[in-house]
């Protein structure tokens, strides 16, 4: 890159911009006020000719910084791709002409809007530099798979076939996990009518025959250090030997345990050996080896069996699992067939409240009905062991018979899945709360799985009920630790078919992570971003806010207690930048300065002009695309707003708001994603952290003697295309009501 900074501004006249706006005036603004060395307009900037114009200036005129005044930064990204240069975009199309009426009266305010965006673009680009890329890359290409069950084995095989070496760590002495303990599995192929072989032996054989997969049995991960592309993992085996492996990305496939049926004494578990859980029945079926299944109590063949669905699941009282494990209905159908396929005279009754058979389970269910399995809709109250038989007492929900009874030889409880997700790091950081009912539903397992050497804790953060999902809507395999993916029932309850699909998907994500880490690029949602946080350590006060708040655990502390950035763990959300009270964290193309200078570049009319100015800081993931789409649909909104895209609400530094109010803006709108329970934030915690910080803004406003309504925090989803212009217009009316900001004359 040339040492000298040369800024050029380009104004496009295509897509109606030339007719609606005075392009010469815009060029003039860029030169006079934007103070760029070169400013040009073009009839159609995104055409080959237009792009060549820019390329030519870069090559022959020494242009280093490019400001393009055309369409939204989300459009024409391929045409306007100049990786060697700092590029800013002024959104004149979606942000100005498409949201303003094409009338003579509106012409003046529309032109003012466009001129401000040119000023802002010029100011922004000057504060930027072209991202040079993360220097701290790693080149390890090996994938670590933790857990040798169906999910883990599938992931290992998929990665190996794609050409990546795999290290597979299994805690027990053999591969196969829970699936190896099954007699048969739920069918995954047409015609979905009968239980099928588990296929585990075949998977194990494939793993053993694969020279690309290194298997550690009886082994655990005792230490995981580093970042994607350069993880250093210590694996300890039972014999005491410790191996160290260089790992590029990690797949955690640690699966689940059945919910402990001992917590269900009312259903007879532990009181009679003839009450078993689903795993217990699999053991009986394996022992029978195709012959009649025998009662554990007296060894006689079972003549009648009842399956109790949702045993200890979907419990609203907070005593047992609150969720549905999703696979147990199909599993009970499969187990009923173990009996019916051997002897159709055995009475098999499945007692359910809602039968849920996802996938092709509906065909399987129908097949069971054809085989004579009886399905009764009823809620089981208790199972009482009697002489020779068990009595199932249930409330028949169809006949509304509260005292319905069923005498059977064997009862099978469908108890569901509890994830093996290691240590709940959020519970670790919180002080223990006494006497809170909800806490006890899922107990955190005290043993860490990955033993991450991250400041934020040794395991992957959990989302809900111990499951490790992070962004279930957009990025199902992602955890909040870059380069670490969880698959199978540790992520959410699922069956084998789903787990295999999951493993395949996550393996591809892990491979992407390995490749991105090598190139120093970000993983999603800013895929390919070469910028990374830089810190000016001499200004750092060691307040630790960045290390605590980073949603991805990317920041550790060095021995002098300064923040230590692990760039390849970073998702580039900028939450650290928003958190930093002394503003020493920045990105090459996004910083306190790039946004701050845009805010200051806007021309603020005096208080008698009747032209208020409203600053909108809009999240680039949801709010900004919603605004763009509002433009595409020509949903008009106020000409008084000036919109600045931000990476996340979490990256908003409160100085921007203070600066805006001091500069004489009449209002500030913050548009971010939903946070909390059903959050939509692409960075999981970003919008939540941002909002928490902004909740303190009221005090600032009071100190400035301003109305609290001068700053508004709004939740905007990508679908709010109709709604967001209405929000803007309402707020603009409210500003007119409140009157102009008293800070204008300063």
């Amino acid at each position, binding site marked *: 890159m040339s040492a000298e900074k040369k800024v050029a501004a380009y104004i496009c006249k295509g897509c109606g911009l030339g007719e609606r706006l005075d392009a010469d005036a815009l060029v003039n603004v860029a030169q006079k006020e934007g103070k760029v060395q070169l400013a040009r307009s073009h009839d159609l900037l995104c055409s080959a000719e237009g792009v060549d114009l820019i390329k030519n200036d870069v090559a022959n005129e020494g242009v280093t910084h490019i400001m393009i005044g055309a369409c939204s930064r989300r459009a024409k990204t391929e045409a306007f791709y100049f990786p060697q240069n700092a590029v800013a975009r002024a959104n004149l199309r979606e942000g100005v002409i498409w949201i303003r009426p094409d009338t003579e009266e509106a012409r003046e305010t529309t032109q003012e809007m466009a001129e401000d965006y040119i000023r802002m673009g010029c100011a922004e680009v000057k504060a930027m530099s072209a991202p040079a890329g993360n220097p701290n890359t790693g080149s390890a290409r090996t994938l670590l798979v933790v857990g040798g069950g169906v999910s883990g084995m599938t992931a290992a095989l998929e990665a190996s076939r794609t050409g990546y070496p795999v290290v597979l760590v299994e805690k027990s002495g053999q591969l196969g996990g829970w699936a190896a303990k099954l007699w048969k599995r739920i069918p995954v192929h047409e015609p979905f009518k009968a239980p099928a072989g588990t296929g585990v032996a075949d998977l194990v054989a494939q793993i053993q025959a694969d020279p690309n997969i290194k298997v550690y049995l009886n082994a655990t991960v005792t230490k995981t250090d580093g970042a994607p592309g350069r993880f250093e993992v210590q694996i300890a085996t039972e014999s005491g030997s410790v191996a160290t492996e260089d790992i590029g990305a990690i797949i955690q496939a640690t699966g689940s345990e059945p919910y402990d049926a001992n917590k269900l004494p009312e259903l007879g578990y532990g009181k009679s050996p003839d009450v078993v859980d689903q795993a217990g029945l699999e053991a009986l079926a394996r022992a029978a080896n195709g012959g009649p299944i025998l009662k554990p109590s007296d060894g006689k063949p079972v003549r009648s069996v009842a399956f109790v669905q949702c045993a200890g699941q979907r419990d609203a009282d907070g005593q047992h699992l609150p969720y549905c494990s999703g696979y147990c209905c199909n599993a009970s159908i499969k187990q009923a067939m173990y009996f019916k396929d051997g002897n159709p005279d055995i009475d098999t009754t499945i007692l359910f409240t809602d*039968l849920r058979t996802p996938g092709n389970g509906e065909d399987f*269910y129908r097949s069971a009905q*054809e085989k004579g399995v*009886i399905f*009764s809709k009823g809620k089981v109250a208790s199972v009482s062991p009697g002489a020779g038989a068990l009595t199932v007492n249930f409330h*028949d929900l169809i*006949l509304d018979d509260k005292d319905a009874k069923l005498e059977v030889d064997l009862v099978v409880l469908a108890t569901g899945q509890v994830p093996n997700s290691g240590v709940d790091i959020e519970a670790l950081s919180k002080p223990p709360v006494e006497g809170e009912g909800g806490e006890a539903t899922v107990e955190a397992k005290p043993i860490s799985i990955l033993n991450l050497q991250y400041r934020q804790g040794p395991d992957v953060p959990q989302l809900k009920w111990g499951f490790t999902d992070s962004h279930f809507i957009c990025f199902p395999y992602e955890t909040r630790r870059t380069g670490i993916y969880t698959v199978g029932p540790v992520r959410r309850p699922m069956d084998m078919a789903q787990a295999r699909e999951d493993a395949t998907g996550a393996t591809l994500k892990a491979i992407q992570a390995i490749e991105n880490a090598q190139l120093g690029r970000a993983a999603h949602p800013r895929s390919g971003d070469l910028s990374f946080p830089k810190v000016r350590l001499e200004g750092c006060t060691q307040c630790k806010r960045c290390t605590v708040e980073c949603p991805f655990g990317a920041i550790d502390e060095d021995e002098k207690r300064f923040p230590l950035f692990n760039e390849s763990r970073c998702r580039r959300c900028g939450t650290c930048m928003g958190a930093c009270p002394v503003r020493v964290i920045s990105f090459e193309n996004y910083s306190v300065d790039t946004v701050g200078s845009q805010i200051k570049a806007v021309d603020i009319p005096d208080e008698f002009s009747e032209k208020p100015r409203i600053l909108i800081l809009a999240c680039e993931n949801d709010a900004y695309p919603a605004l763009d789409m509002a433009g595409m649909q020509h949903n008009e909104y106020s000409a008084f707003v000036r919109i600045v895209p931000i990476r996340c609400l979490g990256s908003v530094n409160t100085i921007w708001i203070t600066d805006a109010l001091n500069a004489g803006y009449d209002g500030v709108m913050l548009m971010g994603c939903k946070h909390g329970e059903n959050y939509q934030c692409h960075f999981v915690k970003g919008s939540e952290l941002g909002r928490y910080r902004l909740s303190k803004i009221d005090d600032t406003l009071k100190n400035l003697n301003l109305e609290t309504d001068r700053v508004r925090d709004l939740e905007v989803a990508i679908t709010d295309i109709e709604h967001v212009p209405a929000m803007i217009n309402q707020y603009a009316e409210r500003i007119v009501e409140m009157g102009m900001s008293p800070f204008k004359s300063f």
Partner: protein
Amino acid sequence: MSANAQMVAKYKNNFLKEVQEQVEMGEWVKMCMQCGVCSGSCPTNFHPGWEHPPQEIFMMIRAGKREEVLTSPSMWMCTSCYNCIVRCPRKLPITHIMHGLANYAHRLGMAPKMQPTRHFAKLFWNNCVKTGRVNELKLSMGLYFKDGFGQGIKNGMAMKDVALGLLKAKRLNPFEMLGGHKCKDQNGIHAMLKKARELEEKRKAIKAAA
């Protein structure tokens, strides 16, 4: 041994099996998935005579409630509108199963004695097979007097205006009371029906004995 006692002895407590083997279309009962669409679709649903909607009848069969199902007037209330068949996601021939159950209860002598649908069906059949043609006057008179002589007169008086109207329009001939018109070969019809009954009895006997 009565037909009923015979079946009780044969199937003991397994009523579902009995229905599967003895009732016309009974083999479909196990395929019901209890969604309740049939009950929601039934136009007689709000009639007080409809004790148990089809979904519930199926569940009662599975729960072994033999006496309750067979003595129930519910399946006699079916109007054969076929809404349930059209809508059943599992494609159960519900209307036919209802008729099958009603017929089975009738054969075992367990159907409710004076249930109006059953009463009418019997009247119609007897009326029709006598001469080979339905005598409408006798049929409606038979229905009027279902619940005794006094009630019959009352029913007749209530319908008097309709009857006079029909008379005027030449739609009702009072002389039909004296025998009415018949088909040509009455003996032939009787022989045909006799043969048909013989065949059916034989078929049912084989089923019952199997």
